[in-house]
């Protein structure tokens, strides 16, 4: 199989990630739940992963790296823990339901006002609108770093400048960019960076987290056992414990830690260069095929994603034909990005998303081009 659904999850993981998970399952106790050898080993693994993640994203303090089960949980934690009744929030048409649904719920249940920076037909944002939409009670801008549908990058420097000028927090969904692009949360002025471990970071599913700027106080989404301050009736106030009730996924975090080692060994700029080279090779091969419509803006830096349609064919049928007849894995449909599809005019048809990773090859890319050409000629 040629796997081109890396925006959903990277299928191919570095072997050391798999081995790290297996070794942790053989030997790790419960982290932060004792001082015997196997518990300490788990605690050391988790601490090491925090330090590596902090360094990777330029989060100044490892104790402000919080682990969650995925980026959705991280976003829910940040959004629900920071946005108060009566607040105003600015977000964008590019967002995934992991951002939209928590915000819609706050609008319905906490009298939170929402405004959206619209996307144009190429999936681009008008950055001036972030400032124009700002209100005295704007609590946060919540936005993705890259559209999971088009791969268009959001210029976080411009968004951050608007947030700072308006006194709002900046919460970033890095689901499509963590591990694929260098991210410096200090330089970019990010207050909360939410990431998943199983996509570009090439770690196991069930891992993710948030990096929190010092001074940003997030109320816990869940409370419970922490291994410390057990007789206190309330959740400990200190990060990361305040947001980490219950046993952590230390086995998965061990794999994530090994994955970060692997990324550092190669270098994220090198990974980004290879992934985007494959994406652009694919783009060059398909964009001029009669009947093929490609979505997004390819004029600048971007994530390694190409979304397209062939004529008026149902995107699910095209994706199924790619899988059944060519052995190529893609993602059709709505991609949990309803506003983005509406902006592109693909709400009914959906789109077929091809997303590339470090482990893909030029030969695989060329096979995908040939498959699209043959399907377009049918």
């Amino acid at each position: 199989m040629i796997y081109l659904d890396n925006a959903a999850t990277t299928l191919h993981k570095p072997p050391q990630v798999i081995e790290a998970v297996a070794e942790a399952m053989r030997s790790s106790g419960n982290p932060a739940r004792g001082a015997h050898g196997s518990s300490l080993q788990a605690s050391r693994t988790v601490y090491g992963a925090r330090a590596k993640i902090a360094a990777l994203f330029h989060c100044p303090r490892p104790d402000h790296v919080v682990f969650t089960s995925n980026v959705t949980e991280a976003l829910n934690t940040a959004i629900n823990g920071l946005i108060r009744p009566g607040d105003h929030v600015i977000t964008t048409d590019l967002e995934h339901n992991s951002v939209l649904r928590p915000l819609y719920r706050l609008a319905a249940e906490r009298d939170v006002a929402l405004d959206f920076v619209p996307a144009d037909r190429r999936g681009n944002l008008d950055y001036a609108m972030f400032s124009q939409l700002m209100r005295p009670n704007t609590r946060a801008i919540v936005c993705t770093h890259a559209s999971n549908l088009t791969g268009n990058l959001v210029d976080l420097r411009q968004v951050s400048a608007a947030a700072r000028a308006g006194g709002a927090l900046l919460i970033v969904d890095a689901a499509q960019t963590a591990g694929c692009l260098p991210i410096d949360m200090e330089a970019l002025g990010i207050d909360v960076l939410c990431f998943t471990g199983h996509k570009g970071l090439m770690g196991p599913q069930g891992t993710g987290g948030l990096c929190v700027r010092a001074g940003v106080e997030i109320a816990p989404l869940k409370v419970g056992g922490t291994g410390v301050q057990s007789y206190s009736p309330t959740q400990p106030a200190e990060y990361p414990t305040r947001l980490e009730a219950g046993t952590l996924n230390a086995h998965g975090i061990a794999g994530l830690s090994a994955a970060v080692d692997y990324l550092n060994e190669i270098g994220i700029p090198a990974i980004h260069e290879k992934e985007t080279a494959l994406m652009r090779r694919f783009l060059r091969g398909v964009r001029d095929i009669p009947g093929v419509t490609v979505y997004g803006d390819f004029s600048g830096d971007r994530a390694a994603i190409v979304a397209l349609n062939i004529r008026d064919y149902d995107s699910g049928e095209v994706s199924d034909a790619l899988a059944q007849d060519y052995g190529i894995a893609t993602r059709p449909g709505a991609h949990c990005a309803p506003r983005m599809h509406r902006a592109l005019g693909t709400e009914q048809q959906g789109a077929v998303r091809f997303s590339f990773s470090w482990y893909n090859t030029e030969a695989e890319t060329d096979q995908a081009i040939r498959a699209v050409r043959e399907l377009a000629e049918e």
Partner: protein
Amino acid sequence: MRKREPRVILSFPATVDAMSMESYSAAHGVPGRLIPLPTAISAGCGMCWCAPITDREAVERAARDAGLRVSGVHEMML
């Protein structure tokens, strides 16, 4: 039980600080190790840094230099 000796104990509000203490101490040759939090300090669970009482100054300095959050510094027979 083992023979008790005078020890200095540093307790922390979160496990991450205890792990950071261990990491920093290993890198800088600070004496001590992580142990379960004695019930005399708190009946809760958790872990703390334990070192000979003669190393109290070095241990406290290490925690300061590492920028750790310390809940308390205790002396006791352990």
